[in-house]
């Protein structure tokens, strides 16, 4: 316990331990999916710099509950940056000001005493607000269902190394598989486009031998579903990669475009041959 408690203090600046902040929060409050929401101001006093952003919200919520008010609803689960549940616009940036950081791993030491912090839910037609900061990211699930998987017979575990994967491909696939589907890319994109997410999934399976048999259908279906969900059109601005907590790079978008164009050419060639 002693080591856990000192972790935050070690990582913070010298003399930071025990320092507290008095903050003003402007939070989007919305009762349910159909009601109109608004920004509500809260005072958050005595916030330890060693708290995570979500712990700060926990403290604010405890005080709200004690006052008999409705706590601020927000999504969270693992609180160690790997589940993709948390996510909110903090001061106008998805997951807040730190790069490669989820909201749960963002520490309050990155904020100034007396600062006003705005907190808003992800904004996209495809991500409707359910309550306060909670949005429905089912659109991402439906993109995955459209083809972001491999069809494989289940049964006994296969022998390791039965399918050889070159090291470079395994590394690349792993980099893209790091996507936690948090939705920050969509939230930050000026076009509310889901290209980085969809491309990461396409590139992940596209780098592996298991992903090859369904590669063409996968990209065609996932892109189609992405459009059906009402996401915007990519203009290659790069805000997505800038806020991605897993640092998925912009070049996956080029990779997906390449896959889509290749799949289109192959489909047309197949149709031509089957007609002959």
């Amino acid at each position: 316990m002693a080591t856990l408690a000192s972790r935050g203090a070690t990582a913070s600046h010298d003399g930071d331990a025990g320092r507290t902040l008095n903050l003003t929060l402007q939070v989007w409050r919305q009762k349910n999916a159909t009601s109109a929401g608004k920004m509500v101001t809260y005072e958050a006093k005595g916030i330890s710099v060693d708290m995570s952003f979500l712990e700060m919200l926990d403290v604010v919520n405890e005080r709200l509950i004690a006052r008999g008010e409705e706590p601020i609803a927000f999504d969270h689960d693992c609180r160690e940056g790997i589940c993709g549940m948390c996510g909110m616009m903090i001061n106008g940036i998805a997951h807040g000001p730190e790069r490669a950081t989820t909201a749960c791993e963002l520490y309050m030491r990155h904020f100034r005493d007396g600062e006003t912090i705005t907190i808003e839910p992800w904004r996209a037609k495809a991500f409707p607000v359910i309550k306060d900061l909670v949005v429905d990211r089912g659109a991402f699930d439906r993109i995955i269902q459209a083809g972001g998987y491999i069809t494989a017979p289940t049964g006994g575990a296969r022998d390791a190394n039965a399918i050889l994967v070159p090291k470079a491909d395994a590394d690349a696939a792993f980099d893209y598989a790091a996507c936690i589907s948090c939705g920050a890319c969509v939230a930050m994109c000026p076009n509310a486009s889901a290209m980085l997410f969809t491309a990461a999934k396409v590139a992940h399976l596209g780098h592996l031998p298991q992903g090859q048999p369904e590669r063409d259908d996968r990209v065609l279906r996932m892109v189609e579903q992405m459009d059906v969900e009402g996401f915007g059109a990519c203009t290659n601005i790069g805000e997505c990669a800038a806020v991605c907590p897993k640092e998925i790079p912009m070049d996956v978008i080029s990779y997906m475009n390449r896959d889509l164009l290749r799949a289109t050419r192959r489909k047309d060639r197949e149709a031509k041959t089957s007609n002959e």
Partner: protein
Amino acid sequence: MAATVALYRTSIGKKTVMAVTGIILYLFMILHIYGNLKVFEGREKFNAYSDYLRTVGNPIFFRTELLWTIRVVLLVSVILHIVAAVQLTQRSVASRPVRYVNKKETDATFASRTMRWGGLVIFFFIIYHILDLTLGTAHSGTYQQGDVYGNVVSGFSHWYVTAFYLLAMLALGFHLYHGVWSMFQTLGINRRKYNRFFRGLALVSAVLIGGGGCVVPLAILTGIVS
């Protein structure tokens, strides 16, 4: 063919149309700016060059045949580029019905943010440019068919004509700085190891084409060409 038609219905398919037409217009601009610089060779050579553009391809093509073929290709490219841009913009606007109260930008550049506005400036510029120096109907000064050198000099002796051209070239430079890189990204040609090269190519293209377009108006403004 069915798959290609289906491709156009997707957002990425429309982006592909923008990238391919973008490449056509980009290649044209390189030739156009290079040709413009012949104004420094003097009236006779510049007018001869402009007349050559009408006979180029002879005898396979008769007079102005190839010129008109290129004009049609360019016109179709511009129309497709704009139609796709409008459709994609509508999609993007509709994709975020509720705006953020506080929204910042991190990696967006001035160029990437202003693609649509820059495109609009370039659109109006193209119309004016054709009326000004191709048809002569909106020409400031005396327009004489065939004396391209004289028309250029008389047009750019008006400060407001020069100012609008410089503004349009600035918009074009920014449009190319994002667009040239973006088209390789859209066509799936860009890769991590080539990224710096395409960014560099975009910067060089923006400076040479946007800057190159400013050279002739500035040369007339400063009296180097008269």
